[in-house]
């Protein structure tokens, strides 16, 4: 019975913790991707230096903007050459067909559409000197939708998993108390006080909860160290994001571990206490 209770706690809380870490990591990846959202403002070749300076200082004054980089026609060509090195396309380029541009990085990526709209006139055409504004319209919208939906689904799943864990642990502990109901009955009949009966069971429930959750944390530790940190590198390479705050490598995971152990102890203690109520009133 003792072993059953400990393994129930270990397995259920492991599931809760594992999902929690996955969710946190997915959120971290998504927000890294979000921070990559950029607005590219391509300038007409006839745009004057004056207009350029004016536009740059204007963009810099917007509070949603974290960084503005000017890329001249020459820089654009160099970058294009570097990106397509060895490709046939380079042979076909004559002169410099590439426009100069501003690349705008945002501190609040959700505002990307509003920023892009500022380059339009009331008639819906681009303002003078601006050729085109590109920010991956469809892609950005979907990304934000997915993030929001994923967030609420994840929250629901965590709540469900936690409830399932509580119910399973409670039932296991209740069964182990049920198996000893005769002992409780005899104790009460010969005049044991309620606390005398209760304390060993409470201690046992607490102990089972803490030991089980420590086992869960040990399993989580290995999983997050070996699998997630390796996965992190792969994700950085694939998505070309610069940094990823995923848990295997951050301090937040220590709080999750501590939380799981405290939760385990509490669930064990409270389960015992509630399960005892039925048997102690003899």
């Amino acid at each position, binding site marked *: 019975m003792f072993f059953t209770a400990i393994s129930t706690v270990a397995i259920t809380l492991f599931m809760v913790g594992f999902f929690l870490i996955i969710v946190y990591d997915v959120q971290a990846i998504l927000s890294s991707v979000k921070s990559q959202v950029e607005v590219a403002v391509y300038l007409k070749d006839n745009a004057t230096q004056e207009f350029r300076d004016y536009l740059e200082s204007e963009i810099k004054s917007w509070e949603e903007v974290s960084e503005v980089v000017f890329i001249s026609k020459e820089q654009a060509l160099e970058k294009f050459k570097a990106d397509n090195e060895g490709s046939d396309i380079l042979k076909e380029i004559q002169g410099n067909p590439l426009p100069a541009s501003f690349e705008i990085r945002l501190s609040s990526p959700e505002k990307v559409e509003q920023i892009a709209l500022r380059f339009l006139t009331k008639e819906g055409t681009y303002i003078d000197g601006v050729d085109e504004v590109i920010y991956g319209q469809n892609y950005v919208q979907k990304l934000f939708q997915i993030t929001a939906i994923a967030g609420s689904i994840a929250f629901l799943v965590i709540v469900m998993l936690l409830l399932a864990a509580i119910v399973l642990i409670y039932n296991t502990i209740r069964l182990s108390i049920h198996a000893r109901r*005769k*002992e409780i*009955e*005899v*104790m*009460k*009949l*010969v*005049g*044991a*006080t*309620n606390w*005398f*009966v209760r304390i060993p069971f409470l201690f046992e429930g607490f102990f089972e909860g803490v030991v089980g959750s420590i086992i869960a944390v040990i399993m989580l530790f290995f999983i997050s160290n070996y699998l997630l940190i390796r996965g992190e590198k792969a994700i950085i390479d694939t998505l070309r994001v610069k940094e990823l705050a995923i848990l295997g490598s951050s301090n937040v995971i220590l709080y999750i571990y501590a939380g799981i152990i405290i939760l385990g102890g509490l669930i064990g203690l409270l389960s015992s206490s509630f399960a005892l109520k039925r048997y102690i009133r*003899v």
Partner: protein
Amino acid sequence: MNMIELRNVSKVYEDKSVALKNINIGIKKGEFVFLVGPSGSGKSTIIKLLIREIPVTGGAIFIAGRNICNLKYSRVPQLRRNIGSVFQDFKLLPNKTVFENVAFALEVIGRPGYVIKLQVPQVLKLVGLEHKMKSYPHQLSAGEQQRVSIARAFVNRPPILLADEPTGNLDPVNSEGIMKLLSRINLIGTTVAMATHDRNIVNSMRRRVIELEEGEVIRDQKRGVYGS
């Protein structure tokens, strides 16, 4: 003063079945009383009321002059330490030896180890089981198991011993042994109340008989027999 006194006691269970109607019983210190009557007449209900396993619906119960109906829940263990109780199904713990089963009653009320080592063998000698201290309940006969349960009830030397059908699972020879034991415990000065429907036992003992029928006392007789 009566050791046990029931004044206008009635009991209605949660399912509305009426177990006791306006019962008045007084039992003096050192008395030996049989509660007799058919199944469902209310004998076991009285035993359960006396150890506050269930609450009364009406009336009052006094034990040693104290009304136990308004006893705080936290004082119930104290009451039970002064009442030994014995049941038809013995209620022994199967994974404990005879010694441990009896010692358990002292452990749960916080008696120190040296008291346990002294008192348990004494009481086991009284019930004639000093040679089976290390046996487990399943290694004993039904009669011996009931002796262990009496030893457990009496090890704390309570002034009252209640027995609910203690011979219900026993053959006549073993039953007689149990009755001799209860008589001895009574002779030491313990008040004994025993619920039974064993006609032969009641008739051979010639003690006070209180007969119940459908929750009412229909006869209370000194040196009585089971029924007419």
